[in-house]
């Protein structure tokens, strides 16, 4: 709990404007990021694609060279054979053996035949030798040209009589310028690619062999069809024959997002963007919540400030952590003077400190009752304020109790009205009693008036008559007798009226019983405490258990006790709190020549009794109280005297007054049990 709500910045424009530029930088960065995110893969793709193309070109070049080198080596081997044939060194089976060895070493060569100048077969590596006639037309054409040009030549690829497309290499043989035949090495078009291209290259690329018109001769696609993404065409220039070697990579274009790394980066970026958006939304929500909270706080602050109920928050140590303006006003202290204080508080009234401490420990122990309790606070100017306090636990966000919140209601006005009401009620009752007394008096007067008036008339008449008759010398005895009889009767009647009033008042006979003073005090203690609490007076009794009982009218003596204690308590209204103690003590007093008396003393520490007041203290209708009838002490004294005791008072040496009444102790005190009727009215309160 804060001491007081922090000053709230007015929900104004500055905080609204801020986001405009604050969002610019992140937005720019996000754009940059997205741009580079798009550009980087594209760039990489281009790079990769270029690299692949270059690789393909290099590989293709290498393959082409390999083929050419191989073919050249074969050409050389065949030329060597041809030379040896021309030299006549190779003939018959040796020639075949030589040719077969060549084939064995070079799988790409399908067959080798040797022909003489007329085209007759000299030797063949095949089981079923092929004749010159059976060679394809392009082959034969190439043979013609080779003989004419005196140089070995390759024929155009064409299928021969056996079926497959062949490329024949014709080596014309000349001996001293005379054509003596030729050697024809046939390459299967397929085996040029199948046997002469390394497998790893074939795996990655579709390789096609075409003539210069792009007519397909053979295609090797062991690694699958080409994607037409990376392609390269190399011209394979052979003697008398030009072919194209086309490579077409089976690899497609590089994918835009090829690598896991990039994938992850993109994923993360998307995540980042998402969290940015989420953050933005969260901030918006937070701002909305903040605004709402601020409004709530303002609302609550206004509410607290407008309250007339005091609010006070305390932590678990009893330290005041917050008070609202109403509370400050109530006790007349600034909030700064109260907040942070631990008991005793500056607004505690000294006389009620014990109560506070008890209450406070109850609150700390958690045994606080939800319904309010009444106590008093002291205003800074010393005035006492009756208050009604409700306490309830203060719980923080996590449900843990952090202290206590108390609302304090100033009930002085209510109290004042209650007091006023009660006073008015008492006044009303008093006047009602007076009215009743007046009514009785009036009735009595009327009743007595009649006989008195009659008596007066008779006697006056009689005197008149006597005066007149004296002049005449005679008195009418009969008339006078009548008048006097009437006077007598009326006097009797008046006496009867008085007696009937006595009888009426006498009806309530006192009931006397043996009681102890302790019993009497006990029975009125609740009422005495009630009176005393109102003025924060503590009542102490000191009554020995061994006191003899007294014979008394319980009600009367209880009324006397109530009256005297009430006077004592009220006398201490203005006394300092420490002195507000009322003591009730009792003891036995034994004089040598008198029966022992039980003496009860009621000792207050109030303002005392001035001599002027003391003079008239027991007079009826005398009172020092604004609303008193002045009958209390008078009736008390009558009641005590009726019991055979005395009611006296004296100044307490410690300040204040002692009222002391005595009652005869029972064991040897003969007590008159009849009571004069005019003293029998119950003891009222002064």
């Amino acid at each position, binding site marked *: 709990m804060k001491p007081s709500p922090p000053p709230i910045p007015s929900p104004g424009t500055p905080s609204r404007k801020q986001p405009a530029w604050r969002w610019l930088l992140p937005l720019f960065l996000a754009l940059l990021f997205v741009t580079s995110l798009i550009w980087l893969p594209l760039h990489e793709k281009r790079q990769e694609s270029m690299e692949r193309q270059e690789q393909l070109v290099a590989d293709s070049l290498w393959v082409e060279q390999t083929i050419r080198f191989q073919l050249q080596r074969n050409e050389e081997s065949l030329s060597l054979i041809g030379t040896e044939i021309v030299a006549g060194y190779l003939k018959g089976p040796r020639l075949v053996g030589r040719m077969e060895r060549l084939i064995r070493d070079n799988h790409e060569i399908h067959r080798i035949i040797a022909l003489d100048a007329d085209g007759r077969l000299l030797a063949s590596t095949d089981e079923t030798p092929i004749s010159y006639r059976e060679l394809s037309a392009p082959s034969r054409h190439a043979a013609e040209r080779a003989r004419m040009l005196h140089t070995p030549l390759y024929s155009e690829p064409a299928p021969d009589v056996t079926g497959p497309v062949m490329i024949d290499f014709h080596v014309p043989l000349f001996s001293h310028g005379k054509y003596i035949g030729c050697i024809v090495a046939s390459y299967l078009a397929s085996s040029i690619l199948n046997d002469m291209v390394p497998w790893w290259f074939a795996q990655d690329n579709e390789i096609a062999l075409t003539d210069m018109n792009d007519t397909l001769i053979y295609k090797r696609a062991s690694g699958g069809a080409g994607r037409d993404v990376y392609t390269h065409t190399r011209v394979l220039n052979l003697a008398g024959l030009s072919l194209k070697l086309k490579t077409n990579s089976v690899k497609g274009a590089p994918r835009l997002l090829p690598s896991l790394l990039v994938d992850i980066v993109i994923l993360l970026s998307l995540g980042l963007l998402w969290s940015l958006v989420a953050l933005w939304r969260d901030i918006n929500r937070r701002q909305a919540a903040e605004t709402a909270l601020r409004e709530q706080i303002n609302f609550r602050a206004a509410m607290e400030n407008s309250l007339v109920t005091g609010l006070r928050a305390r932590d678990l140590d009893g330290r005041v952590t917050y008070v609202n303006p109403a509370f400050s006003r109530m006790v007349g202290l600034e909030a700064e003077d109260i907040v942070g204080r631990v008991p005793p508080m500056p607004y505690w009234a000294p006389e009620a400190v014990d109560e506070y401490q008890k209450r406070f420990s109850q609150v700390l122990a958690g045994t606080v009752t939800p319904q309010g309790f009444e106590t008093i606070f002291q205003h800074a100017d010393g005035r006492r304020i009756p208050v009604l306090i409700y306490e309830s636990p203060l719980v923080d966000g996590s449900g843990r109790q952090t202290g206590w919140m108390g609302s304090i209601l100033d009930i002085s006005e209510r109290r004042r009205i209650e007091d006023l009401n009660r006073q008015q009620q008492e006044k009303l009752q008093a006047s009602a009693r007076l009215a009743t007394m007046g009514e009785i008096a009036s009735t009595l007067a*009327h009743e007595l*008036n009649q006989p008195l008036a*009659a008596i007066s*008339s*008779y006697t*006056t008449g*009689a005197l*008149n*008559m006597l005066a007149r008759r004296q002049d005449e010398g005679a008195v009418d005895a009969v008339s006078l007798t009548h008048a006097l009889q*009437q006077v007598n009767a009326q006097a009797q009647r008046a006496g009867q009226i008085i007696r009937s009033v006595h009888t009426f008042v006498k009806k309530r006979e006192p009931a006397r019983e043996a009681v102890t003073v302790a019993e009497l005090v006990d029975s009125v203690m609740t009422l005495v405490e009630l009176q005393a609490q109102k003025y924060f007076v503590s009542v102490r009794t000191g009554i020995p258990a061994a006191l003899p009982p007294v014979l008394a009218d319980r009600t009367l003596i209880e009324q006397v006790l109530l009256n005297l204690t009430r006077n004592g308590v009220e006398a201490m209204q203005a006394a300092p709190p420490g002195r507000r103690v009322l003591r009730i003590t009792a003891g036995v007093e034994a004089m040598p020549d008198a029966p022992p008396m039980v003496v009860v003393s009621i000792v207050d520490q109030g303002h005392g009794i001035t001599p002027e007041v003391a003079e008239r203290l027991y007079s009826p209708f005398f009172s020092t109280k604004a609303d008193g009838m002045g009958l209390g002490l008078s009736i008390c004294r009558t009641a005590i005297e009726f019991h055979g005791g005395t009611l006296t008072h004296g100044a307490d040496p410690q300040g204040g007054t002692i009222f002391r009444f005595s009652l005869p102790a029972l064991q040897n005190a003969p007590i008159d049990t009849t009571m004069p009727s005019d003293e029998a009215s119950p003891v009222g309160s002064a």
Partner: protein
Amino acid sequence: MLHIVDDEEVLRDSLLWLAKSRGIPATVYDGGKAFLAALDGIGRAAAGQCALLDVRMPDAGGIAVFDQMAARGLTQVVPVIFLTGHGDVPMAVDTLKRGAFDFFEKPFNDNKLMDRVQEALAASERAAAGAAVRTRLAALSTREREVLDLILKGKMNKVIADELGISMRTVEVHRAHIFDKMNVKTAVELARLLK
């Protein structure tokens, strides 16, 4: 005649006895109704009358009786003295303003009461006499009233005849009638009566 009206028998009796001791003739009534019943006869009686009314009576209170008497125009001929208990004084003062003779608060001084009763009886007689003269005057004719006025001014018959423009003889006849109707013998007697 004193009329004692009270519901208390003892008071009635004592007051009657008191009146007798002063030589005042008196009668008693035990309540307002009884008195009102006898009232007409009382009003016509020649001698001095007086009523002693108790304010508080069970059947008809003194004030009510007084109101009845006022309504019949008898409060002059029969003066009323109220006897009041305590606390009725303002009411009694009010009746004084309306023509009651007096009021006494109980307990009263008896002889003073009787003195006032005698004064009331005298006032009653005067009022009764005045009433009789007014009755006789009412019997005169208009011309006789004119002649009467001039006689009272002390004028001779001749002067009266001149002033009224009638004959001496006629004036004498009127004069004889007036004396006859007013029940007097001489002009001096007439003047005393109408003083």
